[in-house]
Protein backbone atom coordinates (compact mmCIF):
# COMPACT_ATOMS: atom_id res chain seq x y z
CA UNK A 1 0.00 0.00 0.00
CA UNK A 2 1.30 3.39 -1.00
CA UNK A 3 1.51 5.95 1.86
CA UNK A 4 0.90 8.90 -0.41
CA UNK A 5 -2.02 7.24 -1.89
CA UNK A 6 -3.45 6.46 1.46
CA UNK A 7 -3.21 10.10 2.58
CA UNK A 8 -4.21 11.75 -0.55
CA UNK A 9 -7.51 13.64 -0.53
CA UNK A 10 -8.81 11.26 -3.09
CA UNK A 11 -8.32 8.50 -0.63
CA UNK A 12 -10.28 9.97 2.27
CA UNK A 13 -12.26 7.23 4.01
CA UNK A 14 -15.91 7.43 3.68
CA UNK A 15 -18.18 7.33 6.79
CA UNK A 16 -19.10 3.73 6.27
CA UNK A 17 -15.49 2.75 6.22
CA UNK A 18 -14.89 4.70 9.44
CA UNK A 19 -17.59 2.80 11.30
CA UNK A 20 -16.09 -0.51 10.18
CA UNK A 21 -12.60 0.56 11.33
CA UNK A 22 -13.91 1.67 14.76
CA UNK A 23 -15.58 -1.60 15.28
CA UNK A 24 -12.41 -3.41 14.44
CA UNK A 25 -10.45 -1.21 16.82
CA UNK A 26 -12.95 -1.74 19.59
CA UNK A 27 -12.78 -5.46 19.12
CA UNK A 28 -9.03 -5.36 19.20
CA UNK A 29 -8.98 -3.27 22.36
CA UNK A 30 -11.49 -5.61 23.99
CA UNK A 31 -9.23 -8.56 23.29
CA UNK A 32 -6.07 -6.72 24.63
CA UNK A 33 -5.15 -7.28 28.23
CA UNK A 34 -2.81 -5.10 30.18
CA UNK A 35 0.19 -6.90 31.59
CA UNK A 36 0.20 -7.44 35.36
CA UNK A 37 1.98 -4.83 37.38
CA UNK A 38 4.80 -6.31 39.30
CA UNK A 39 5.32 -5.51 42.98
CA UNK A 40 8.81 -4.25 42.18
CA UNK A 41 7.33 -1.47 40.03
CA UNK A 42 5.10 -0.37 42.93
CA UNK A 43 8.10 -0.20 45.16
CA UNK A 44 10.14 1.78 42.68
CA UNK A 45 7.34 4.31 42.20
CA UNK A 46 6.78 4.74 45.93
CA UNK A 47 10.46 5.12 46.59
CA UNK A 48 10.81 7.66 43.85
CA UNK A 49 7.86 9.70 45.18
CA UNK A 50 9.18 9.66 48.69
CA UNK A 51 12.61 10.70 47.46
CA UNK A 52 11.07 13.57 45.53
CA UNK A 53 8.67 15.01 48.10
CA UNK A 54 8.67 13.52 51.54
CA UNK A 55 12.42 13.73 52.16
CA UNK A 56 12.82 17.31 50.84
CA UNK A 57 13.20 19.91 53.60
CA UNK A 58 10.10 21.85 54.54
CA UNK A 59 11.55 25.23 53.47
CA UNK A 60 12.45 23.82 50.08
CA UNK A 61 9.01 22.39 49.60
CA UNK A 62 7.58 25.78 50.66
CA UNK A 63 9.75 27.64 48.19
CA UNK A 64 9.12 25.37 45.22
CA UNK A 65 5.58 24.40 46.02
CA UNK A 66 2.55 25.82 44.27
CA UNK A 67 -1.12 26.27 45.01
CA UNK A 68 -3.71 26.12 42.36
CA UNK A 69 -6.48 28.65 42.69
CA UNK A 70 -9.76 28.84 40.84
CA UNK A 71 -9.72 31.80 38.45
CA UNK A 72 -12.65 33.72 40.12
CA UNK A 73 -10.89 33.56 43.47
CA UNK A 74 -7.60 34.80 41.99
CA UNK A 75 -9.32 37.68 40.17
CA UNK A 76 -11.24 38.73 43.30
CA UNK A 77 -8.05 38.68 45.37
CA UNK A 78 -6.24 40.80 42.77
CA UNK A 79 -9.08 43.35 42.72
CA UNK A 80 -9.07 43.59 46.50
CA UNK A 81 -5.32 44.14 46.53
CA UNK A 82 -5.59 46.98 43.99
CA UNK A 83 -8.41 48.67 45.88
CA UNK A 84 -6.63 48.61 49.25
CA UNK A 85 -3.38 49.87 47.68
CA UNK A 86 -5.19 52.82 46.12
CA UNK A 87 -6.88 53.75 49.41
CA UNK A 88 -3.59 53.53 51.29
CA UNK A 89 -1.88 55.80 48.76
CA UNK A 90 -4.65 58.41 49.06
CA UNK A 91 -4.35 58.41 52.83
CA UNK A 92 -0.59 58.94 52.68
CA UNK A 93 -1.03 61.96 50.41
CA UNK A 94 -3.50 63.60 52.77
CA UNK A 95 -1.33 63.31 55.91
CA UNK A 96 2.36 63.74 55.12
CA UNK A 97 4.69 62.19 57.65
CA UNK A 98 7.11 65.14 57.82
CA UNK A 99 5.56 68.18 59.53
CA UNK A 100 6.12 71.39 57.59
CA UNK A 101 6.24 74.94 59.05
CA UNK A 102 3.16 76.10 57.21
CA UNK A 103 1.45 79.41 58.04
CA UNK A 104 -1.83 77.76 59.07
CA UNK A 105 0.01 75.91 61.84
CA UNK A 106 1.35 79.24 63.12
CA UNK A 107 -2.10 80.76 63.23
CA UNK A 108 -3.53 77.87 65.17
CA UNK A 109 -1.06 78.41 67.98
CA UNK A 110 -1.30 82.20 67.99
CA UNK A 111 -4.99 82.59 68.48
CA UNK A 112 -6.10 80.39 71.32
CA UNK A 113 -3.03 80.19 73.59
CA UNK A 114 -1.86 83.61 74.62
CA UNK A 115 0.55 83.18 77.51
CA UNK A 116 1.69 79.65 78.12
CA UNK A 117 2.54 78.99 74.50
CA UNK A 118 4.29 82.31 74.20
CA UNK A 119 6.66 81.53 77.01
CA UNK A 120 7.58 78.30 75.37
CA UNK A 121 8.35 80.18 72.18
CA UNK A 122 10.76 82.49 73.93
CA UNK A 123 12.73 79.67 75.44
CA UNK A 124 13.01 77.96 72.11
CA UNK A 125 14.73 81.09 70.86
CA UNK A 126 17.27 80.95 73.67
CA UNK A 127 18.08 77.35 72.91
CA UNK A 128 18.48 78.06 69.21
CA UNK A 129 21.06 80.71 69.94
CA UNK A 130 23.24 78.49 72.08
CA UNK A 131 22.58 74.97 70.96
CA UNK A 132 24.44 73.30 68.10
CA UNK A 133 22.61 73.11 64.81
CA UNK A 134 22.32 69.35 64.89
CA UNK A 135 19.90 69.61 67.76
CA UNK A 136 17.61 72.07 66.03
CA UNK A 137 14.26 70.82 64.94
CA UNK A 138 13.84 71.00 61.17
CA UNK A 139 10.24 72.11 61.51
CA UNK A 140 9.47 74.20 64.61
CA UNK A 141 6.11 73.52 66.09
CA UNK A 142 5.90 76.90 67.83
CA UNK A 143 5.37 80.18 65.97
CA UNK A 144 8.47 82.18 65.08
CA UNK A 145 9.71 84.67 67.70
CA UNK A 146 8.67 88.24 67.32
CA UNK A 147 11.48 90.72 66.77
CA UNK A 148 9.35 93.72 65.95
CA UNK A 149 8.80 95.60 69.21
CA UNK A 150 6.80 98.42 67.65
CA UNK A 151 3.96 97.99 70.12
CA UNK A 152 6.18 97.77 73.16
CA UNK A 153 6.22 100.67 75.59
CA UNK A 154 8.55 101.61 78.42
CA UNK A 155 7.43 100.18 81.71
CA UNK A 156 5.54 102.60 83.93
CA UNK A 157 7.51 101.55 86.97
CA UNK A 158 10.98 100.12 87.12
CA UNK A 159 11.16 97.07 89.37
CA UNK A 160 14.04 94.88 90.36
CA UNK A 161 13.32 91.17 90.25
CA UNK A 162 15.82 89.20 92.32
CA UNK A 163 16.58 85.55 91.66
CA UNK A 164 18.29 84.24 94.75
CA UNK A 165 21.34 82.12 94.35
CA UNK A 166 21.56 82.85 90.66
CA UNK A 167 18.85 80.33 89.85
CA UNK A 168 17.90 82.15 86.75
CA UNK A 169 17.77 80.90 83.24
CA UNK A 170 20.77 81.76 81.14
Amino acid at each position, binding site marked *: MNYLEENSPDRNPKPADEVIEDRELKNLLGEWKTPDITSSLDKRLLTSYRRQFLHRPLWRRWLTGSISLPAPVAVTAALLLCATSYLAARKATSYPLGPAPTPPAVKIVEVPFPVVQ*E*RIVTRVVYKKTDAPKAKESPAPVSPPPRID*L*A*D*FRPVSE*IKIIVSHG*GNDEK
Partner: protein
Amino acid sequence: MRNRIYLLLAALLLCSIQLQAQTLEHLAQSAGSPEQRVNGVVATFSSFAEGRATAEGVLRFNGANDDERAIGSFLVNISTGMYIGYVLYIERLPDPTKLKITIKPMPEEAIEATRKTVFGKLLVLKWPNRPSYDPAPPPSYPEPIVINMTDVIKIPLWVKAGTEWGVVGDRIRFAIDRPRPAREFTLDDVALKLTDYRLIINGEVRSGERELEGIEGPLPSFYVPGKGLFILSIRPHEGYAFQKVGMAEGNKISFSYGADKYELVSRDSVIPFGGKWHIWVLLVTGYQPNPEVLEAYKLLSKGNCCEYFILRPEELSQLPTSKK
Protein backbone atom coordinates in the same frame (compact mmCIF):
# COMPACT_ATOMS: atom_id res chain seq x y z
CA MET B 1 28.83 117.68 89.07
CA ARG B 2 28.82 118.42 85.36
CA ASN B 3 32.24 116.92 84.91
CA ARG B 4 31.22 113.80 86.75
CA ILE B 5 28.18 113.44 84.54
CA TYR B 6 30.35 113.86 81.51
CA LEU B 7 32.64 111.19 82.82
CA LEU B 8 29.75 108.81 82.91
CA LEU B 9 28.59 109.83 79.50
CA ALA B 10 32.06 109.62 78.07
CA ALA B 11 32.36 106.06 79.28
CA LEU B 12 28.92 105.22 78.00
CA LEU B 13 29.49 106.65 74.58
CA LEU B 14 33.18 105.96 74.26
CA CYS B 15 32.59 103.47 71.54
CA SER B 16 30.79 106.00 69.38
CA ILE B 17 34.23 107.31 68.50
CA GLN B 18 35.80 103.96 67.79
CA LEU B 19 36.58 102.57 64.41
CA GLN B 20 33.97 99.87 64.27
CA ALA B 21 31.17 102.04 65.60
CA GLN B 22 29.86 102.91 62.18
CA THR B 23 26.19 102.35 62.73
CA LEU B 24 23.95 102.08 65.75
CA GLU B 25 24.07 98.32 65.41
CA HIS B 26 27.88 98.31 65.34
CA LEU B 27 27.86 100.80 68.16
CA ALA B 28 25.69 98.52 70.26
CA GLN B 29 27.92 95.55 69.52
CA SER B 30 31.03 97.36 70.69
CA ALA B 31 29.27 99.21 73.50
CA GLY B 32 27.34 96.22 74.69
CA SER B 33 30.33 94.73 76.44
CA PRO B 34 28.62 92.36 78.82
CA GLU B 35 31.08 92.91 81.65
CA GLN B 36 31.20 96.28 83.36
CA ARG B 37 33.53 96.88 86.30
CA VAL B 38 32.85 99.28 89.14
CA ASN B 39 33.86 99.33 92.76
CA GLY B 40 35.63 95.98 92.63
CA VAL B 41 32.55 94.27 91.23
CA VAL B 42 31.99 92.83 87.77
CA ALA B 43 28.43 93.31 86.63
CA THR B 44 27.60 91.13 83.65
CA PHE B 45 24.74 92.46 81.58
CA SER B 46 22.58 90.53 79.19
CA SER B 47 19.15 91.04 77.75
CA PHE B 48 16.18 88.91 78.60
CA ALA B 49 12.88 88.54 76.82
CA GLU B 50 9.69 86.80 77.79
CA GLY B 51 6.43 86.29 75.99
CA ARG B 52 6.15 87.36 72.37
CA ALA B 53 9.43 89.23 72.27
CA THR B 54 13.08 88.66 71.71
CA ALA B 55 16.07 90.56 72.98
CA GLU B 56 17.03 91.17 69.36
CA GLY B 57 14.41 93.89 69.29
CA VAL B 58 16.55 96.26 71.35
CA LEU B 59 20.04 97.67 71.09
CA ARG B 60 21.76 97.88 74.45
CA PHE B 61 24.58 100.27 75.34
CA ASN B 62 26.48 100.03 78.59
CA GLY B 63 29.28 102.05 80.06
CA ALA B 64 30.84 102.11 83.51
CA ASN B 65 32.30 104.97 85.50
CA ASP B 66 34.34 103.62 88.35
CA ASP B 67 34.62 107.04 90.00
CA GLU B 68 30.87 107.24 90.22
CA ARG B 69 30.49 103.56 91.07
CA ALA B 70 27.85 103.64 88.40
CA ILE B 71 26.99 101.88 85.20
CA GLY B 72 24.87 103.55 82.58
CA SER B 73 22.52 101.49 80.45
CA PHE B 74 20.64 102.59 77.35
CA LEU B 75 18.15 100.33 75.60
CA VAL B 76 16.96 101.46 72.20
CA ASN B 77 13.81 99.95 70.73
CA ILE B 78 14.88 99.52 67.12
CA SER B 79 11.29 99.39 65.92
CA THR B 80 10.46 102.87 67.14
CA GLY B 81 13.71 104.62 68.04
CA MET B 82 12.50 105.21 71.59
CA TYR B 83 15.09 104.51 74.23
CA ILE B 84 15.30 104.08 77.96
CA GLY B 85 18.28 105.07 80.05
CA TYR B 86 19.06 104.39 83.67
CA VAL B 87 22.07 104.36 85.97
CA LEU B 88 22.90 101.39 88.16
CA TYR B 89 24.88 102.14 91.32
CA ILE B 90 26.69 99.30 93.04
CA GLU B 91 27.89 99.67 96.64
CA ARG B 92 29.98 97.19 98.59
CA LEU B 93 28.82 96.55 102.15
CA PRO B 94 30.74 95.45 105.28
CA ASP B 95 29.44 91.96 104.63
CA PRO B 96 31.48 91.01 101.55
CA THR B 97 28.73 88.74 100.29
CA LYS B 98 26.24 91.61 100.04
CA LEU B 99 25.73 94.43 97.56
CA LYS B 100 23.53 97.49 97.70
CA ILE B 101 21.87 98.13 94.36
CA THR B 102 20.33 101.45 93.43
CA ILE B 103 18.71 102.39 90.15
CA LYS B 104 18.33 106.04 89.21
CA PRO B 105 17.23 107.87 86.10
CA MET B 106 19.79 109.09 83.62
CA PRO B 107 20.83 112.60 84.69
CA GLU B 108 19.35 115.42 82.64
CA GLU B 109 22.84 116.70 81.86
CA ALA B 110 23.75 113.35 80.40
CA ILE B 111 20.62 113.35 78.25
CA GLU B 112 21.41 116.85 77.06
CA ALA B 113 24.97 115.83 76.27
CA THR B 114 23.75 112.76 74.42
CA ARG B 115 22.00 114.97 71.90
CA LYS B 116 25.42 116.37 70.97
CA THR B 117 27.02 113.04 70.25
CA VAL B 118 27.28 110.88 67.16
CA PHE B 119 25.01 108.46 69.01
CA GLY B 120 22.32 111.12 69.35
CA LYS B 121 22.60 112.15 65.72
CA LEU B 122 22.48 108.58 64.49
CA LEU B 123 19.14 108.31 66.30
CA VAL B 124 17.94 111.36 64.37
CA LEU B 125 19.11 109.91 61.06
CA LYS B 126 17.62 106.51 61.69
CA TRP B 127 14.24 107.74 62.93
CA PRO B 128 13.85 111.16 61.29
CA ASN B 129 10.18 111.58 62.12
CA ARG B 130 10.32 111.25 65.88
CA PRO B 131 9.04 114.27 67.81
CA SER B 132 11.75 113.85 70.44
CA TYR B 133 15.05 112.10 70.73
CA ASP B 134 15.16 112.14 74.50
CA PRO B 135 14.74 108.92 76.45
CA ALA B 136 11.30 107.74 77.36
CA PRO B 137 9.71 109.73 80.21
CA PRO B 138 11.30 108.62 83.46
CA PRO B 139 9.09 106.15 85.23
CA SER B 140 9.17 105.65 88.97
CA TYR B 141 12.22 103.99 90.39
CA PRO B 142 12.54 101.41 93.17
CA GLU B 143 14.09 101.91 96.57
CA PRO B 144 17.65 100.64 96.96
CA ILE B 145 17.87 96.95 97.74
CA VAL B 146 20.49 94.72 99.30
CA ILE B 147 21.21 91.49 97.48
CA ASN B 148 23.60 88.61 97.80
CA MET B 149 26.59 88.61 95.52
CA THR B 150 25.30 85.40 93.97
CA ASP B 151 21.87 86.80 93.15
CA VAL B 152 20.75 87.68 89.66
CA ILE B 153 18.57 90.72 89.09
CA LYS B 154 16.21 91.35 86.21
CA ILE B 155 14.97 94.80 85.29
CA PRO B 156 11.98 94.77 82.92
CA LEU B 157 12.12 97.85 80.69
CA TRP B 158 9.93 97.31 77.62
CA VAL B 159 6.53 95.72 77.93
CA LYS B 160 3.44 94.95 75.91
CA ALA B 161 0.19 94.05 77.61
CA GLY B 162 -2.66 91.95 76.32
CA THR B 163 -2.83 88.56 74.71
CA GLU B 164 0.44 89.16 72.90
CA TRP B 165 2.12 89.91 76.17
CA GLY B 166 5.87 90.37 76.14
CA VAL B 167 8.64 91.96 78.14
CA VAL B 168 12.26 92.84 77.42
CA GLY B 169 14.85 94.08 79.88
CA ASP B 170 18.27 93.77 81.46
CA ARG B 171 19.52 90.78 83.40
CA ILE B 172 22.55 91.41 85.59
CA ARG B 173 24.87 89.04 87.43
CA PHE B 174 27.54 90.08 89.90
CA ALA B 175 30.94 88.79 90.94
CA ILE B 176 33.95 90.08 92.79
CA ASP B 177 36.39 91.58 90.31
CA ARG B 178 39.75 89.88 90.23
CA PRO B 179 42.60 92.24 91.02
CA ARG B 180 44.37 93.32 87.87
CA PRO B 181 48.06 92.45 87.73
CA ALA B 182 50.56 95.29 87.42
CA ARG B 183 52.05 95.76 83.98
CA GLU B 184 54.70 97.83 82.31
CA PHE B 185 53.80 101.37 81.39
CA THR B 186 54.06 101.94 77.64
CA LEU B 187 53.60 104.87 75.33
CA ASP B 188 50.25 103.39 74.33
CA ASP B 189 49.08 104.35 77.80
CA VAL B 190 49.55 107.99 76.91
CA ALA B 191 46.27 109.23 75.56
CA LEU B 192 46.08 112.13 73.16
CA LYS B 193 43.08 114.14 74.22
CA LEU B 194 41.04 116.50 72.08
CA THR B 195 38.31 118.39 73.92
CA ASP B 196 35.94 120.81 72.21
CA TYR B 197 38.21 120.71 69.20
CA ARG B 198 38.32 121.99 65.66
CA LEU B 199 39.98 120.69 62.51
CA ILE B 200 41.77 123.27 60.39
CA ILE B 201 43.14 122.38 56.96
CA ASN B 202 45.38 124.90 55.22
CA GLY B 203 44.19 127.59 57.58
CA GLU B 204 40.49 126.93 56.98
CA VAL B 205 38.19 125.54 59.66
CA ARG B 206 36.74 122.31 58.24
CA SER B 207 35.04 120.90 61.33
CA GLY B 208 32.01 123.08 60.85
CA GLU B 209 30.38 125.87 62.73
CA ARG B 210 30.82 124.51 66.23
CA GLU B 211 33.44 122.71 68.23
CA LEU B 212 33.25 118.95 68.43
CA GLU B 213 32.79 117.28 71.81
CA GLY B 214 35.95 115.31 72.33
CA ILE B 215 37.97 112.20 71.66
CA GLU B 216 40.71 110.66 73.76
CA GLY B 217 43.01 107.71 73.17
CA PRO B 218 46.38 106.53 71.88
CA LEU B 219 45.52 106.89 68.18
CA PRO B 220 43.18 109.80 67.42
CA SER B 221 42.15 109.62 63.78
CA PHE B 222 40.13 111.54 61.26
CA TYR B 223 38.93 110.86 57.75
CA VAL B 224 39.07 113.60 55.12
CA PRO B 225 37.07 112.85 51.95
CA GLY B 226 39.33 112.77 48.93
CA LYS B 227 42.43 112.32 51.07
CA GLY B 228 41.96 109.34 53.33
CA LEU B 229 42.20 108.40 56.97
CA PHE B 230 44.91 110.12 59.03
CA ILE B 231 46.01 108.24 62.13
CA LEU B 232 48.05 110.14 64.72
CA SER B 233 50.38 108.53 67.23
CA ILE B 234 53.00 109.55 69.72
CA ARG B 235 55.22 106.70 68.50
CA PRO B 236 55.83 104.68 65.34
CA HIS B 237 54.27 101.23 65.03
CA GLU B 238 56.29 98.38 63.63
CA GLY B 239 55.03 97.15 60.28
CA TYR B 240 53.17 100.36 59.50
CA ALA B 241 54.41 103.32 57.48
CA PHE B 242 53.95 106.01 60.10
CA GLN B 243 55.85 109.19 59.25
CA LYS B 244 57.29 111.59 61.76
CA VAL B 245 55.74 114.71 60.28
CA GLY B 246 53.79 116.23 63.18
CA MET B 247 54.06 117.98 66.50
CA ALA B 248 51.97 118.08 69.67
CA GLU B 249 52.34 121.13 71.81
CA GLY B 250 49.94 122.74 74.22
CA ASN B 251 46.43 122.49 72.91
CA LYS B 252 47.38 121.76 69.29
CA ILE B 253 48.46 118.87 67.11
CA SER B 254 49.77 119.94 63.72
CA PHE B 255 51.35 118.18 60.78
CA SER B 256 51.96 118.56 57.09
CA TYR B 257 51.17 115.83 54.62
CA GLY B 258 51.82 116.37 50.93
CA ALA B 259 51.06 119.96 50.18
CA ASP B 260 48.48 120.30 52.96
CA LYS B 261 48.79 121.48 56.53
CA TYR B 262 46.49 120.00 59.17
CA GLU B 263 45.79 121.33 62.67
CA LEU B 264 43.66 119.95 65.48
CA VAL B 265 43.05 122.63 68.05
CA SER B 266 41.68 121.57 71.43
CA ARG B 267 40.31 123.56 74.32
CA ASP B 268 42.78 121.92 76.73
CA SER B 269 46.26 120.47 76.47
CA VAL B 270 46.36 117.50 74.11
CA ILE B 271 48.93 115.70 76.30
CA PRO B 272 48.05 115.69 80.00
CA PHE B 273 51.59 116.39 81.25
CA GLY B 274 52.32 119.06 78.67
CA GLY B 275 55.53 119.36 76.68
CA LYS B 276 56.38 119.36 73.00
CA TRP B 277 56.37 116.00 71.25
CA HIS B 278 56.79 114.51 67.81
CA ILE B 279 53.66 113.07 66.26
CA TRP B 280 53.76 110.16 63.83
CA VAL B 281 51.15 110.13 61.07
CA LEU B 282 49.84 107.24 58.94
CA LEU B 283 47.63 107.92 55.93
CA VAL B 284 45.28 105.09 54.94
CA THR B 285 43.82 105.86 51.54
CA GLY B 286 41.74 102.68 51.24
CA TYR B 287 39.53 103.42 54.24
CA GLN B 288 35.84 103.59 53.38
CA PRO B 289 33.83 105.78 55.74
CA ASN B 290 30.21 105.10 56.56
CA PRO B 291 28.04 107.77 54.89
CA GLU B 292 25.63 107.62 57.82
CA VAL B 293 28.33 108.57 60.29
CA LEU B 294 29.59 111.35 58.03
CA GLU B 295 26.04 112.64 57.87
CA ALA B 296 25.76 112.43 61.65
CA TYR B 297 28.89 114.55 61.99
CA LYS B 298 27.38 117.14 59.66
CA LEU B 299 24.36 117.26 61.96
CA LEU B 300 26.67 117.73 64.93
CA SER B 301 28.39 120.69 63.33
CA LYS B 302 27.01 122.23 60.18
CA GLY B 303 29.64 122.34 57.47
CA ASN B 304 31.81 119.67 59.02
CA CYS B 305 33.74 117.73 56.42
CA CYS B 306 35.08 114.75 58.22
CA GLU B 307 34.72 111.75 60.51
CA TYR B 308 36.65 111.46 63.78
CA PHE B 309 37.33 108.54 66.08
CA ILE B 310 39.83 106.83 68.31
CA LEU B 311 41.68 103.81 67.02
CA ARG B 312 43.15 101.13 69.24
CA PRO B 313 46.62 99.81 68.33
CA GLU B 314 45.24 96.33 67.76
CA GLU B 315 42.83 97.75 65.20
CA LEU B 316 45.62 98.88 62.88
CA SER B 317 45.74 95.45 61.29
CA GLN B 318 42.06 95.73 60.35
CA LEU B 319 42.64 98.76 58.17
CA PRO B 320 42.96 98.28 54.41
CA THR B 321 46.52 98.39 53.01
CA SER B 322 47.91 100.29 55.92
CA LYS B 323 50.95 98.08 56.25
CA LYS B 324 54.35 98.88 54.81
